[in-house]
């Protein structure tokens, strides 16, 4: 069966809707379904992420008048344009220097998560470890409240209070 929208690709997503007793069917290919907001595309390649990144950035001209003054990292001198071409960053400081610009890409790549949870180097000072834990717990608490899992939320709140 062909996709109803593009009339080209094979329809793989079939939607049946019943409104006021009237039944309607839609048969779409994956791409058109994504555009219609019916299917969620969850697997993004780094190149797709990068294309998205450039598209959301104001162009150099808008920002600085000319591209010679594009923001570059003082440690490794990489610019955002170079990053989108190479797909890898130049040094660990880039995450601070381009924090604002990288945020949407990081969110997209990591299922809207933006704060580390998990292993922390054993040499990290105790106070820093505590802060990392607290941030992660607060993030979980927000998610629990949003999904109305109040039992979990209460548990998390207790944990947070204990840590503080």
């Amino acid at each position, binding site marked *: 069966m062909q996709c109803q929208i593009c009339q080209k690709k094979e329809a*793989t997503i079939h939607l049946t809707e019943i409104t006021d007793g009237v039944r309607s069917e839609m048969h779409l290919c994956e791409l058109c379904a994504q555009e219609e907001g019916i299917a*969620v595309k*969850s*697997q993004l390649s*780094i190149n797709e*992420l990068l294309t998205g990144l450039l598209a959301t950035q104001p162009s150099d001209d808008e920002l600085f008048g000319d591209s010679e003054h594009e923001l570059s990292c003082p*440690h*490794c*001198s*990489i610019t955002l344009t170079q990053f989108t071409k*190479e*797909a*890898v*960053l*130049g*040094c*660990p400081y880039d*995450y*601070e220097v381009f924090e604002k610009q*990288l945020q949407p*890409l*990081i969110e997209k*790549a*990591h*299922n809207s*998560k*933006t*704060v*580390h*949870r*998990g*292993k*922390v*180097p*054993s*040499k*990290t000072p105790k106070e*820093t470890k505590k*802060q*990392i834990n607290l*941030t*992660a717990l607060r*993030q979980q608490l927000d998610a629990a409240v949003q999904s109305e899992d109040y039992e979990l939320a209460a548990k998390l709140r207790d944990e947070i209070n204990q840590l503080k």
Partner: protein
Amino acid sequence: MKLTDISGDINEWFDGSGPLADIVISSRIRLARNLAGYKFLSRCSVAEKSEILDKLKDILMSLELGDKISYLSVDKTPALDRHLMVERHLISRHHAFGKGPRGVVIAQREFFTAMINEEDHLRLQVLKGGLQLSQCAVQINRIDDMIEERIDYAFSPRYGYLTACPTNLGTGIRVSVMLHLPALKMTGQIEKFLNASRDMGLAVRGLFGEGTEAAGDFYQLSNQVSLGISEAEVVAQFENAIIPEIVEYENAARNQLLSKEPDVLDDKISRAMALLRNAHLISSQEALFLLSHLRLGINMHERMGASTPAIEKLCKISAGGADKPLNLSITTINRLFMLTQPAHLQLNCGKTLDAAHRDVLRAQIIRSALNG
């Protein structure tokens, strides 16, 4: 270590033992790490890369792993040897054919490798047969701890371990499970599996063969998200939810074949056997495709007691017309999967061969293994 020491046999993780090894070929965890105080590799000079390499090599070679460890300078290793390491899943294609000073540390039993100067300064990998992700996690964490005692990693409280590509940020963990799913393919349900995996945000790749195509019904399933979810959570997700469910589906498909379409199953197995025992030219793609069906038949016999006419015949094959059965085991088939890959063929016969000559040798090896 010379690669010819290991190229004649399968890796320990491919010996067919391990939990759920009929469907789950292997479990792998890798961690991406970078040294504090250095730029990422794309911005490092050759001298800086060499410095990082020396530093990490020293630390890694002094690790107590309970196994002999060896170091290879990948940039000074012949192309065929690099191919072989890719075929054995010891290093990535990116590492094998990249640029600049880079190396690999390999444990003799091949459960552990560390790539130095791949995309990140350090990529640790632990690989085990069957579904053993927790065990991989414990081991790789211990190794990571030992390294961390002697060096500072680039780490930020907010983003975790800092990686050259933001897609690996956070824990830097990639959990990969290699699966053999021939029955899902035969019953036309593999697309469902692929779509469901993608909906869960997992990446699916082929295991053997070139590029991403899943040759021989082998699939590799990996996580994509590494930030905001702990190592233990990712591992638990795979080990307790995702993989057991897929294994259940594959088993259901195998039962469905047995009960509803035994002729379809027998046809595939018999054809595979006939071709493999008689062909004089066989490409690696065709070999993978056909061996996959034999692997299914033997596994169904061993694990489910299946005994269709073709499976019975497969398991009672005799050597050279004699009455003595060959006792084809999963290990025999796994060996053929591994040893008939292009670089393995060439290294084991001691000379370079073009594709046409490889097809001859491959067919010869398979014929002799299956005819006795």
